[in-house]
């Protein structure tokens, strides 16, 4: 496979250079030329206005007999005797995929003491549960998971395997993929079926979320994907009568090359605004140190870090290391909620790269509204507590 550039056609318009995420193409002597940085992603092909660039794909030669692979699997994980919620979300999506493929949906659990709940997975759309039972599976062991799952997959040949993109899922999924020589796509946010080929189109953010890539595994099976919790919704619209396959294994600690010595609970660490996904900040409009309590409550409800404008740190309403802005931290969270911050340039430069900005302010002409995505004009002292209540409600439903 390679990128072919027709230098006669090329007008050196540089559209391809702009489109290339890798800096893998440049203009030399009036024509685009591929550089060693090219990653063959094909972004330049779509960008070229004169169709001078083509991506020459080698013929797809299947590495396995794909027709042998049937069915959609979800691998569940569990902590402290409870199935992680992402498994239910994956069942929701898995059901849709299985329906399009006209095949069935299986949930795989490696654990112990789950007999009671196995039949309940039918309510979430599963046709079948494969339950591998062993005392030792109370804990997670990287190698035991990979060994058991690769045996199951080799034997039963599913065409799609969905795994939660948690620290556990992201630990065993790649190793399993390598052992099965299967394609794996991490952190998918979208999954679609190409009906005629039964290929799974897996869309995921890449390049720090600045780009989206759709990935396929056209020549091999199974197709594996990990998905972050919260991306898909669990559904109990389709109820199925569930078939339970229980496999008892006699495993002990010597079956793993690793040993779990102990589990340590960690305290939440210090302020880290730069890495925070959500920040709730207060400004002069908060009015007092005591006034920050409602801001803090909202932050807590959202699992967010607390921030403040310069004046609030100078007046000691919040700690100095929480200051956002020119003289404080520069932040770019997924969500930034500015409460009672007017939006002086010195604050804006510190937070304008946030993905979503919510502004709550009494003054409808406040500059903060100029860069905010969602604007709430009103008194923060009234709005914030109601917002906190609403957020708690949503969180408890999720």
């Amino acid at each position, binding site marked *: 496979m390679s990128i072919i550039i027709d230098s006669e056609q090329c007008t050196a318009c540089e559209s391809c250079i702009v489109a290339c995420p890798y800096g893998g193409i440049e203009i030399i002597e009036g024509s685009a030329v591929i550089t060693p940085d090219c990653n063959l992603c094909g972004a330049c092909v779509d960008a070229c206005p004169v169709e001078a660039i083509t991506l020459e794909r080698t013929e797809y030669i299947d590495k396995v007999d794909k027709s042998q692979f049937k069915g959609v699997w979800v691998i569940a994980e569990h902590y402290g005797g409870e199935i992680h919620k992402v498994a239910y979300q994956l069942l929701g999506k898995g059901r849709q995929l299985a329906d399009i493929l006209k095949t069935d949906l299986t949930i795989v659990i490696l654990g112990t003491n789950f007999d009671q709940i196995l039949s309940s997975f039918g309510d979430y759309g599963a046709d079948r549960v494969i339950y591998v039972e062993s005392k030792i599976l109370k804990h997670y062991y990287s190698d035991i998971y990979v060994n058991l799952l690769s045996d199951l997959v080799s034997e039963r040949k599913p065409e799609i395997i969905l795994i939660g993109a948690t620290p556990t899922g992201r630990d065993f999924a790649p*190793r399993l993929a390598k052992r099965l020589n299967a394609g794996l796509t991490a952190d998918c946010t979208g999954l679609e079926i190409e009906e005629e080929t039964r290929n799974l189109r897996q869309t995921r953010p890449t390049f720090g979320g600045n780009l989206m890539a759709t990935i396929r595994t056209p020549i091999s099976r199974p197709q594996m994907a990990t998905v972050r919790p919260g991306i898909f919704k669990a559904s109990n619209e389709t109820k199925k009568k569930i078939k339970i396959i229980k496999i008892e294994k006699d495993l002990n600690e010597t079956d793993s090359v690793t040993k779990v010595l102990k*589990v340590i609970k960690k305290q939440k660490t210090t302020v880290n605004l730069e890495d925070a996904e959500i920040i709730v900040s207060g400004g002069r409009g908060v009015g007092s140190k005591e006034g920050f309590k409602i801001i803090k409550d909202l932050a807590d409800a959202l699992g967010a870090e607390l921030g403040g404008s310069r004046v609030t740190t100078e007046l000691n309403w919040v700690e100095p290391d929480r200051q956002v802005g020119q003289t404080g931290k520069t932040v770019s969270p997924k969500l930034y909620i500015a409460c009672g911050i007017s939006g002086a340039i010195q604050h804006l430069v510190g937070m304008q790269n946030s993905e979503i900005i919510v502004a709550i302010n009494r003054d409808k002409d406040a500059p903060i509204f100029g860069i905010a995505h969602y604007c709430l004009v009103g008194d923060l002292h009234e709005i914030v507590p109601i*917002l906190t209540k609403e957020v708690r409600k949503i969180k408890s439903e999720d």
Partner: protein
Amino acid sequence: MKVFVCIKQVPGVSEVKIDPKTNTLVREGIPSIINPHDKHAIELGISIKEEYGGEVIALSMGPPQAEKALREVLSMGVDKAYLLTDRAFAGADTLATSHTLALAIKKLLKETNVEQKYIVICGTQAIDGDTAQVGPELAEELNIPQITYVLKFRLEEDDKVIVERAFRTEEVVEIETRLPVLVSVVKEINVPRMPGVQGIVNAYQNKEVIYLNADDIGADKSEIGLNGSMTEVWKIFIPEKKVDHVVLTGTIDEMVRELCINLHDDKVI
């Protein structure tokens, strides 16, 4: 003991911007940097050497420009650096990448004829792709234990390795295994040192970056690069801008409810 550290040169994606007018990527002036997680891997490698002895070897697969990244880690105190560079490596997915790295590590182990006592260290993930897959896949290729998301690392007698692994947000698991082992580290594990001027001078005057191509590592062309990949990038596109500028109206309750619905749809809460 050999300590292999795998690093990647990546675009500094936090500086990437989308031009709102043309909805295209603004690439200009984006520096290439060492993947931030990998600096923590290098720091762990060097500190293992300082505490227990051994040799720290950095490996990177990428275009010739990635030599700069390797020079930087040589400046930090890495002993040797290898750059795996070949057009045949291009377009590799994580499976093909881990295969290539594994071939290089096996070759380097074989050359020295020492007993297979080694550690491989990776950063958890690269900020351009964020897959976190190469580490575990590499461990599988090398057929050694893996421990990902490592927060603390120590060696004890009889090649015993004890690590703390981040498990859930507020839970850490202490795990024991034996060398050889692959660990992938998270940022919290350490603070990477900055190379001093002396280190930089040393890296350019007394150390070298050794280039290895597909033949050097004995790679089968069908198992590397695009040919060795199971996945293909079918399409790359710029995500639709999530939200524009919405002024919420109505009573406070209505505004709050609408906001929450929007934020939930935007997947931020």
